C-alpha cells in the first residue's frame, strides 16, 4: 500500500478556476519526490490536498450537477473542516463530502480524506508552509514546536523530549526560548521544519523550502532535510536542490501531471522543461 495514493484528482476553486485536473500519482515510504512546474501550476494546491486542508469532493463526481454547484460544495466543505460544528448548513455539506469518500481521489496511509480520518492523516503528512510567518504563530519557538505534539495529546514529558530532539535535529537547540520574530528567515524556516518533524510524520510535504534563503541558509536546510528518513515531496523552482534531494520528479503544469519519472531524465529533457516554463539546471548543461 502506497503512503499517499492520488487517483484522478480534480479541483476547482470557488471562483471557478481549475487548479487540478485528473492528477494521478502515488508516493511510497522513504521516497524523495520533487514537484516542479511554473507559478500557478497547482503545486501548493496539491500539497494542501495531501494534508486534507482542501476538500476533496470533486474527483470521481464528474457529471453530478453543474460545475458551479460543485464549486459551491467545495467551498462549504472547506468551511466545515476549518470551523467544525458551526451551522446546520455546514454539517449538511460535510455529509456530502463524507458520502463521496467511497470514490475518494486522495488516500493517505490507506485512509480516504474525510473528517473522521483527518487527525490520522495530518499525523501522517506534515506540511511545511512557504512563508514561515504563517506557520510560526506561537509566542516562543519552544511553544511552536510543541504545538503539534500537544494537539496529538502526547504527555508533557514526551512533548518536551520531542521539542529538544527536533530542535537539535535542525541545529537550533539554542533558540528554544527566543521569539519567532527575532530569528532570521533561515532560522525561522528550520523552526517550521522542527514544528512539523516533532509530529513524526511519514511524509513531509514542503512548499518552496529554499525560497528567500541565502546560500548558507539554503545549504543548512538541505543538510537537515537530507538526513531525514521519512518520505518527502518538495514543491520548488530550485531545480538544483531537487536534483540533489529527490530521485523522482513530478512535473505539473496547468493542474495536470505532464511528466513523472526519474529526476535525472526529466531535468535533462530541455524541450520538456522549456515547454513548461522551466529551464535546464546549470549543473546538467555542461555534462550533456
Amino acid at each position, binding site marked *: 500500500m502506497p503512503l499517499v495514493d492520488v487517483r484522478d484528482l480534480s479541483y476547482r476553486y470557488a471562483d471557478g478556476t481549475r487548479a487540478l485536473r485528473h492528477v494521478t500519482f502515488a508516493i511510497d515510504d522513504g521516497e524523495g519526490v520533487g514537484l516542479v512546474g511554473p507559478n500557478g501550476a497547482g503545486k501548493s494546491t496539491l500539497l494542501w490536498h495531501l494534508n486534507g486542508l482542501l476538500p476533496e469532493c470533486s474527483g470521481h463526481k464528474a457529471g453530478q450537477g453543474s460545475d458551479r454547484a460543485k464549486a459551491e460544495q467545495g467551498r462549504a466543505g472547506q468551511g466545515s473542516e*476549518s470551523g467544525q460544528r458551526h451551522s446546520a448548513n455546514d454539517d449538511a455539506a460535510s455529509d456530502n463530502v463524507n458520502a463521496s469518500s467511497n470514490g475518494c481521489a486522495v488516500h493517505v496511509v490507506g485512509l480516504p480524506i474525510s473528517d473522521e480520518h483527518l487527525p490520522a492523516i*495530518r499525523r501522517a503528512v506534515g506540511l511545511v508552509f512557504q512563508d514561515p510567518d504563517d506557520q510560526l504563530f506561537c*509566542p516562543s519557538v519552544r511553544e511552536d514546536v510543541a504545538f503539534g505534539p500537544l494537539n496529538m495529546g502526547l504527555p508533557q514529558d514526551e512533548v518536551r523530549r520531542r521539542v529538544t530532539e527536533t530542535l537539535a535535529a535542525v541545529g537550533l537547540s539554542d533558540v528554544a526560548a527566543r521569539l519567532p520574530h527575532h530569528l532570521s528567515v533561515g532560522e525561522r524556516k528550520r523552526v517550521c521544519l522542527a514544528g512539523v518533524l516533532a509530529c513524526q510524520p511519514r511524509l513531509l510535504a514542503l512548499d518552496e523550502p529554499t525560497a528567500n534563503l541565502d546560500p548558507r541558509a539554503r545549504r543548512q536546510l538541505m543538510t537537515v532535510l537530507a538526513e531525514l528518513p521519512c518520505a518527502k515531496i518538495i514543491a520548488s523552482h530550485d531545480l538544483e536542490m531537487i536534483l540533489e534531494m529527490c530521485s523522482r520528479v513530478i512535473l505539473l503544469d496547468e493542474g495536470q501531471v505532464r511528466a513523472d519519472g526519474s529526476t535525472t531524465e526529466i531535468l535533462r529533457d530541455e524541450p520538456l522543461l522549456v515547454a513548461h516554463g522551466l529551464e535546464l539546471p546549470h549543473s546538467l548543461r555542461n555534462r550533456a
Partner: protein
Amino acid sequence: MQPDSINRYSLDRYSRGGTSLLHRADPRVKLLAAVGLILSIGFTPPDFLPLATGVPISMIQLIALALVVVGVQSAGIPWRYFLRRLGGFGLVLLLLSLSIPLAQGFRGGWDVLLGVLVKGLLSFATILVLVNTTPFERLLWAMRRLGMPGLLVSTIAAMYRYVFVLLDELERMRRARSARTFVPARGLSTAELRNGATRIGMLMVRASDRAERVHAAMLARGFDGDFPMLDEPELN
C-alpha cells in the same frame, strides 16, 4: 528589515535579561499588582484625599506615580525610552479627550480632560513598567495560570506575534510607494489622505489573507479549537 520595526515600535525592549527585583518577581504577582494599581488609579475620584482644592490628582494617584517612578528607576528602564513611549500614548489620549471640552464648546470640561489624562497616563505607565520587566510569554503564562480563558490568552498571543509582521508589511507598502513618488507631497492633500486610506485597506486585505493561511497551518498540525499549553516550571 525585521529588527528595524521591532526596535522602532517595541514597547517591551527591556523585558529580557534584567536582574532587578522587578524582573525576577513572579509574573502572576506582577500582573495582579499592575491590575490592582490600574483599578485604583481609575476608580479614585480626584477629590478623594485631595492634595489641594482644584488639583485634579488624588493621594492614591500620587502614590501610584511614586510607585511607577520607583519601578522604572529600580528596573533600570531608561527614562528617555520610557517617556517617549508614554508620550506617544499621551498624544493619542489627548486627541481623544479633547472631545470632552469640545462637546461643551470649549467653555468647560478642562478639569475632566485633565483627570482623564492623569488616569490614562498613569495606567499606561504602570503597564509599561509591567511589560518592560516581564517577557511576554511569561505574562501569557501568568494570565493562563490566573484563570483567564484560553481563547483570550491565545488571541493576545497572536496579536503580539503578528503586530510586527503587519507593521513590516505596512512599511514595505510605504517604501514601495515612496520609491515611485517623484514629487514629494506638501502637507496633507486629498490625494495623500486617499493614499493612506488605500494603504490601510490593503493592509486589512493582506492581514485577512494571512489569517487564513495561519489557520490552515494550525489545522495542519492537528489544531481542533483547543489551545494546549506546555507546562512551565513553577517559579519560586
